[in-house]
């Protein structure tokens, strides 16, 4: 291990060390002073973000080719770190008033983020598996953080059981790929595939198993059923973090592995991706129609959004559109992340103890009574629907454009039609907010307001410069050895 090796993973290393330091500090802090930990965590995330952004433009590999660094990783690492910051802001007041402010929350959050970053930079299948567990296990704990609330414990257990189940598929997939190529390093597998020494049948089977495992992480149908239960049971800031960061990490590893290892298998895999994308869009949006709990509704919305993202991933083997697919997916992740976090911020503001304040009816009268919160929620719902003048519109536009450019007009049409369906449940919230009389109870908290208004402003303002944003994501190219 040399210093230059360490430089390649500096944000990860820093985050890990910082998490350990926080655990130590926690031992000396009295219970009522836990707020300091949140601020220290934020500080650590900010420093890590700075370190990460400082790496932009650099690329290379380290630790004997175990990890790589490229702009793709820099972009996504930044996304995870910002997600962590926003989750902290959402949780600052929430943890206190829900009486679950315990120091390990912050360390767990940092561990999970470190795992995500490692997953994104991993260049070896064993490391991929380790990183996957590394990001997942803290999340299982975080999902159950609201103990002794039954729902939260249930969420943690379900997430853990099914997570373990899916990890098995990932592991099996890795084994199959290793069997097919006698190699677990991405570089090595690529070499083997290129030289023609890979056993195609095993390789395909391995790819499918990996797809299943990662499909679980991004909540793609039919591996999605955990999501509504877990999203509903977890503490809301954790849910927001899962909905954005975990999903992004899942897509990140999906992109890196499939674009690197399996472009040759595209002819067999693309129909599978097609089916999963279509199913995910349809099921996610249809089931969201029937929800009356806002957290479950947003859970199905996040499933549906995974479907849209997968749509751009379907032509991953087509070299002409692969670049466009990556940039439009990253753009969509950004748009989706900002919008979703904003929506979760509003959910946090309305949530009361014991899981009250979470039905759609609790939003009646929100618009007139709390104009700022109402308008921001309106913006998020419009953005999720994909109405122009929001980032969500451009996100969908670029995704659909990619699908059409790759010749998948049918997918784009499914995407459009399911977007129409989604308008019903997103706008239903708006209708309830503005056209039903009610006395919503809202927790007013500066950090929450900052997140809601900040993300709403970003969603609207960034939509004015969509092309520049797309160019930004287009620079986040994947390092292809």
């Amino acid at each position, binding site marked *: 291990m040399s210093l230059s090796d360490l430089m390649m993973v500096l944000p990860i290393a820093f985050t890990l060390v910082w998490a350990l330091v926080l655990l130590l500090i926690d031992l000396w802090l009295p219970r009522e002073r836990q707020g300091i930990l949140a601020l220290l965590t934020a500080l650590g995330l900010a420093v890590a973000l700075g370190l990460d952004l400082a790496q932009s433009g650099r690329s290379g590999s380290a630790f004997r080719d175990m990890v790589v660094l490229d702009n793709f990783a820099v972009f996504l690492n930044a996304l995870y770190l910002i997600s962590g910051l926003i989750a902290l802001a959402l949780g600052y007041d929430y943890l206190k008033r829900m009486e679950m402010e315990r120091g390990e929350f912050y360390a767990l959050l940092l561990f999970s983020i470190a795992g995500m970053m490692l997953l994104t930079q991993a260049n070896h299948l064993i490391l991929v598996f380790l990183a996957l567990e590394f990001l997942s296990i803290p999340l299982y704990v975080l999902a159950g953080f609201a103990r002794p609330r039954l729902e939260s414990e249930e969420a943690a257990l379900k997430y853990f059981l*099914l997570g373990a189940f899916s990890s098995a598929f990932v592991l099996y997939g890795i084994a199959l790929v290793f069997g097919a190529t006698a190699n677990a390093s991405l570089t090595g597998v690529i070499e083997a595939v290129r030289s023609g020494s890979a056993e195609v049948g095993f390789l395909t089977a391995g790819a499918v*198993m990996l*797809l299943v495992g990662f499909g679980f992480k991004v909540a793609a149908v039919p591996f999605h059923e*955990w999501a509504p239960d877990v999203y509903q049971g977890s503490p809301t800031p954790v849910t927001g973090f899962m909905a954005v960061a975990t999903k992004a990490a899942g897509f990140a590893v999906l992109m890196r592995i499939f674009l690197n290892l399996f472009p040759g298998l595209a002819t067999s895999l693309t129909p599978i991706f097609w089916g999963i994308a279509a199913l995910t869009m349809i099921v996610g949006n249809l089931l969201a129609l*029937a929800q009356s709990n806002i957290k479950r509704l947003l859970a199905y919305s996040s499933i549906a959004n995974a479907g849209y993202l997968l749509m751009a991933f379907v032509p991953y083997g087509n070299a002409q559109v692969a670049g466009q697919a990556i940039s439009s997916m990253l753009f969509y992740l950004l748009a989706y992340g900002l919008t979703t976090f904003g929506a979760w911020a509003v959910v946090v503001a309305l949530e009361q103890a014991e899981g009250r304040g979470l039905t759609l009816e609790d939003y009646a009268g929100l618009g007139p009574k709390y104009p700022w919160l109402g308008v921001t929620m309106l913006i998020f719902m419009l953005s999720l629907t994909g109405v122009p003048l929001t980032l969500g519109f451009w996100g969908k536009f670029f995704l659909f454009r990619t699908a059409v450019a790759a010749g998948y007009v049918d997918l784009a049409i499914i995407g459009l039609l399911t977007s129409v369906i989604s308008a019903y449940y997103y706008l239903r919230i708006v209708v309830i907010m503005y056209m039903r009389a009610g006395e919503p109870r809202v927790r007013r908290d500066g950090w929450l307001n900052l997140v809601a208004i900040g993300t709403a402003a970003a969603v609207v303002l960034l939509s004015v410069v969509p092309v520049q944003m797309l160019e930004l994501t287009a620079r986040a190219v994947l390092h292809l050895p």
Partner: protein
Amino acid sequence: MHMEVMSVTEPLFRLAPGVVFLPVAGILLNLLLGERWSEKVVGWIASLATVGAFGVAVALAVGLSRHPEGAVVPLLTWIHIGDFRVDWAFRVDTLSVVMMLVVAGVGALIHIYSIGYMHEDVRHNGDPRRFRRFFVFLNLFIAAMMILVSANNFLMLFVGWEGVGLCSYLLIGFWFEKGAGGIGNALAAKKAFVVNRIGDFGLLIALFLIFVNFGSLDFDAVFGQASHLAQVAPGVLTAITLFMLLGVTGKSAQIPLYVWLPDAMAGPTPVSALIHAATMVTAGVYLVARSQALYLEVPLAQSTVTWVGGLTALLAATIALGQYDIKRVLAYSTISQLGFMVAAVGMGAAVAGMFHLVTHAFFKALLFLSAGSVILGMERGHEAGHHHQVELDPQDMRYMGGLRQRMPLTFWVYLIGALALAGVAPLAGFFSKDEILAAANLKFPAVFGILLFSALLTALYMGRQLALVFFGSPRSEAAEKATESAPIVTAPLVVLAGLSVVGGLINAPGIYALEHWLEHTLHTVEAIPFQWTIAASSLAVALIGLGLAWWLYGQRPLPSPRETDPLARLLDGVYHALERKWWVDEIYHALFVRPYQVLAQGLAQAVDLGVIDGIVNGVGQLARQIALWWRKWQNGYVRSYALTFVVGVVLIVAYLLLR
């Protein structure tokens, strides 16, 4: 000849945009700052804006006297797509400047008159704050009308055409909450709007055809290619001219679309004078005159236009006989006189048509404004009387009578206007009408007969009106106590009366100033020789008509409002038909309005609510049902989730194996 090649030779021509921008300046001043100004200031700003436009028009006329070929004054490029280009450019030629002079000249007088008239009208109707709105609308009308007449292409003309239509709608409905049942005026405005839409639809089709077939909307480009198109595709040119005629029948109130104009009298009287007598309704005449190059190529269109005009002249003149509302008589008279003009431009006698347009603007504006003065006098008399709580229609001639003594000045100017309209020599109407008759005699003898008979009826209904309003003894307390109007109202009347007397000189036999003036623009002008026989018969029918009126109404004046009209005793059932306007409104209602409403109702109820909403709601319900059914799979058991998971994997593997 494209406008870039043409340089503006005459410096005075550069003033041309002023005819539009001065009224616009008036609008802006009154709209932005007029809130705090007094009625006088508001009224005079609007009037001065119009006077200024008149000044510009005079300057342009002076320029034209030096450079009669005129010019196109460019302002800006409006549309430029590929080869197609439409400019915002003002056309200064002898034809457009005649229109500008009439619009701004008569318009200015009516603006000044309105200061006095609207002062009383807004109070009588109980909302003085609408004074400013009226003058803003009036200036807007002048601006739009100027755009219409100064346009150098059909598209700009269409902007003005629609603009004056909008102003007409706004001003007919100026007291939109008044009228029969509190909605009568609004209905009248709506009727005018809808009927004009039908006409405008025709005009639009004509414009589209022009665009497609000529590739340009510029007057010069279109007219220059007219004879070529007439050889290549005569059917297209026929279609263009006939669709354009539909537009003309809407705007200039000809058969079959004239029905809106009588109802338009719901607007304040200055509006009736300016828009619905002197200027806007002549836009159709102007359009046909401007498009002579097209019409001359299509004999069928020419004869159609002529017959439409002739029949309108006759029909409206008969209806005018049966009306009791002082303004409605004048409205039908306007339709009838527009029929004369349309017939004239239709048969190619564009100069005669334009001549009659100008003189008619003088005496019909005079008649309307004098009628307004009469109405004001009646209202004053009504309020001064003992029974002013009782509703009285101040426009019903049956309640008038004997106003000659009460309102002497109004009487004299009214008399001049009526005689000019009847065509008594040497007043203005005599010369212009005579020229139309002479042209018709040469080209369309049958139409000549119709027009001559219409002229007889014209004299008859005007004589009837004079007798009912001014002679005999007052038939109501209001008429008894009526008083003369203020000088600001009567002064414009005197000016217009003067013009009605001498206006005929501009193209009287031997002078032919208008003809020489217009021949620079209307290159196909053929001089119509003056014929003593025609002139004599025209004068004769006028005198016969007046004499007949005197015999019926003057000798033994109507004793009371409830007495039967003497003409009704003479004509019996036919008179009832005249009173009921030949039931044209009722026929239109049964033939077009009702079926349309039934169709719309059917589409709205059965098709929209039933089929369309049914499909939309059905799809929504279906999606919901699927969602509710599917939801059962999400049962909360981890084992079931894992099963789904495995089923997914099995399906994928099965696909790969069976592929």
